[in-house]
């Protein structure tokens, strides 16, 4: 099969599409190939992230897995009022991952995960109708997580990790005033936060295992964000003064995952995950000023908790090649009333393909690609609520994720 047809094939698979809030999706090339079903996956260093408990299975090998990922969300918008269609600019987000695990003996395993679990980049064309609602919006996070796991028995282990998170956020909107097309407001900020994750893993038989994992929410409190206003006419400059003290909160939600893995044949492993994400604490994206400014920015979000189901299968074709297939259904936390152009989210149905080649004795090359389609979302705007900006229309979004990585075990 020629490569261009593969993504077209996925398009047919997913006639309606969606993905969860501002999560980036599965972390790591192997996990991406499995559609993100990894809570009950042992003997892989990504367990540090997905379930620290699964890290604790006395693994004689030291494992390192490293790679790069690219995520591209593509959205089209059809305006209710002008009936014009606008495509979001294509802005692939590059990210990477690093997982490592090492068994120290006495049932204790250490692990490290470096991931980018949350993030998005939205960029609308400059002439877009909703440019005064949002022109560009982005979030980027990096999470470093040292992890320890303990094997309590042959078939049962627990683990915990500390999540050290750095996040940065940016929002750009046109002021839509003064006949100055380029008068705009930009808010930026970054902050650090910490959380934890815990997990347990068990095997009830040779071929059936389960895992439960909890990742806490992390609040990033930005206190020294900046607000920059450009091209405001001199007469009104005092209404829009640049600030270095913009405050905002970014709440990265906690998740509870339950997973099962079934080694159906020696060559075929099937994994199933159910995840509940605590989005309700994500109330709004608000940039606050020390003094009340004309151009404060607030986007209500009022997310609701969301579920995700993931199924992945891994088939060992031969000694050197493993194939993976995954399907994911991810409920959107965005309610109908709050569908907005900064992150026009919808329920996501995604399918992924992955493959691993043994390049050398201990070295694997992992490749994976996922195509996700989000359900169409219809946004309404209430013009009488003059403090709340939105634009009425329909969003349709496709999400492409690709990963390439190397795994080394010795």
């Amino acid at each position, binding site marked *: 099969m020629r490569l261009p047809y593969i993504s077209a094939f996925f398009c047919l698979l997913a006639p309606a599409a969606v993905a969860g809030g501002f999560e980036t999706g599965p972390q790591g090339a192997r996990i991406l190939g499995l559609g993100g079903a990894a809570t009950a996956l042992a003997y892989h260093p990504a367990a540090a992230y997905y379930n620290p408990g699964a890290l604790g299975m006395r693994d004689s090998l030291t494992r390192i897995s490293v790679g790069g990922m690219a995520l591209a969300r593509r*959205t*089209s918008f*059809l305006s209710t009022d002008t009936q014009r269609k606008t495509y979001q600019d294509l802005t692939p987000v590059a990210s990477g991952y690093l997982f490592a695990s090492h068994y120290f003996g006495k049932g204790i395993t250490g692990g490290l995960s470096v991931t980018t679990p949350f993030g998005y980049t939205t960029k609308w064309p400059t002439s877009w*109708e909703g440019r005064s609602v949002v022109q560009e919006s982005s979030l980027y996070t990096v999470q470093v997580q040292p992890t320890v796991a303990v094997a309590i028995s042959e078939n049962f282990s627990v683990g915990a990790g500390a999540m050290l998170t750095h996040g940065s956020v940016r929002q750009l909107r046109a002021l839509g005033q003064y006949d100055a097309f380029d008068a705009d407001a930009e808010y930026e900020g970054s902050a650090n936060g910490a959380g934890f994750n815990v997990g347990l893993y068990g095997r009830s038989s040779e071929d059936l295992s389960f895992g439960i994992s909890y990742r806490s929410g992390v609040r990033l409190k930005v206190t020294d964000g900046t607000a920059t206003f450009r091209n405001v006419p001199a007469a009104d400059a005092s209404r829009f003064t640049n600030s270095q003290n913009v405050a905002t909160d970014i709440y990265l939600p906690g998740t509870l995952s339950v997973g099962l893995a079934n080694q159906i044949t020696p060559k075929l492993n099937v994994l199933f995950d159910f995840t509940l994400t605590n989005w309700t604490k994500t109330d709004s994206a608000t940039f606050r000023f020390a003094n009340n400014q004309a151009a404060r920015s607030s986007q209500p979000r009022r997310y609701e908790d969301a579920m995700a189901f993931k199924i992945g299968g891994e088939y060992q074709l031969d000694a050197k090649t493993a194939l993976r297939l995954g399907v994911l259904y991810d409920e959107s936390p965005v309610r109908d009333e709050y569908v907005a152009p900064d992150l026009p989210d919808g329920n996501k149905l995604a399918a992924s393909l992955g493959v691993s080649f043994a390049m050398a004795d201990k070295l694997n090359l992992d490749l994976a690609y996922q195509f996700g389609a989000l359900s169409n979302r219809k946004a309404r705007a209430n013009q009488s609520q003059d403090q709340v900006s939105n634009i009425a229309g329909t969003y349709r979004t496709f999400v492409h994720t690709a990963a390439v990585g190397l795994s080394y075990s010795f």
Partner: protein
Amino acid sequence: MWLLPALGLNACVPDQTEPTPSAAQLNLTRYVAVGDAYSAGFSNGGLTTQSQLYSYPNLLAVQFSLAQPGIAFAQPLVTGEAGTGYLKLKEIGVNGLPVTERVPAARTTIRAKYTAQNSCGTTDTTYVYSRAAGVDLPNNLAIPGFRLTQLTTPGLGLEANAAAGSPFNSYFERLLPANDSRPYIQAVSENKATFFTAMVGLEDLLPYALKGGECIQRPTSTSNNLILSNLTVLLDALTANNRPGAIATLPELGALPYFQLGTGQRVLESVRASSGNAQAVLYIVSSLTNEARPIDNSDIVLPAALSAVGKEVSFTNADGSVETLRYGLDPRVPLARAEVLDATEVGRVTPFIKQFNATLKTLTDPVQGKYKIALVDINQLFLNVSGTGGVQGGVNINGVEYSGDPIRGNFFSLDLYSLTPRGNGLVANEFLRQINSYYRANLPLLDVNQLPTTSLPR
């Protein structure tokens, strides 16, 4: 990232189909707009080519042509860069009001000028402008100063009437050939429209209110009855042969910044704050008794007087002694009659606008109304934008706030009652919404934020 192009990213773009604009059964080939200053594109206290191009009828015609390409919409464009003259923002005053200066019309634009004594004994000047070039009777028949009471008056566009002090409208004159005494209603009937919009009646009342009720004929029950009966005469002509169209309600005075910025309570509070005297009383001259009386919240101080309130003035007493008083804060120096539209004068305008709007609703009722045309509630749009009676106004259009704020509200132009291009855009969108829903058409709305915030020539 190299992987993405390899996988043929463009093989599946999240496409959506744009609906096809449709006018349903409407024939929009000759759209005619009837109205006054609001429909003529009057903005910043004057008419310029630029402001006419942003008149809501012209904006509507552009949207109509999306459904029926090739529609021509002729407007009686004024000549000269400054048009009939207009207001330009000089600075923002201390009270937040625009301080403007008038850019005069070019000499070539003014053909003649006539003066006449008014009821106050001062003179009013009437300018006659150069004739509109091109076709006889343009699509945009709206003329600033149009009065329903003059709908059937012959010779309204006859220059001789300007000299004689008879009913005359110079904006109508310039649409007609010389020595043409056709009444306005005839110009409407002869226009062979296939579709019409109308927004009429406000300028029967607005000049009286803008002048504080002085030096101008006051509305009476006779003139009001004539307005209402001429409304049906006009609608009969417009809807002849079941011609489709839309008519707008009239904005109440309270929705216009000109009358909103100086409500009695608001002025009193600001003068008490600025003079540091919480007991200060503001005096106006009653239009009933012609004597000074304390201001009431139903009285409206006009914008031109707002900056004078509380200023020091010298007053000579009967015994010849001179005192320094604060203007308006002493019964001896009350605000002049022309500076205030007092409660009695408001009562001659506001209740009738409400009555007019109620009449329009009855006449156009979809079930029992006499006229089967769309009703566009422009009054509600104005109220939503600027608020009234202590209700905070403001609408958010795709992230841009529109309000009654005279400088930054985007809706009202510098004369504080006519509209900016964006204001015209919102009016056009309201028309489009109602036309779409009444005639089951699918005409796209305008992206109003793309329009300029002011219609100054450039």
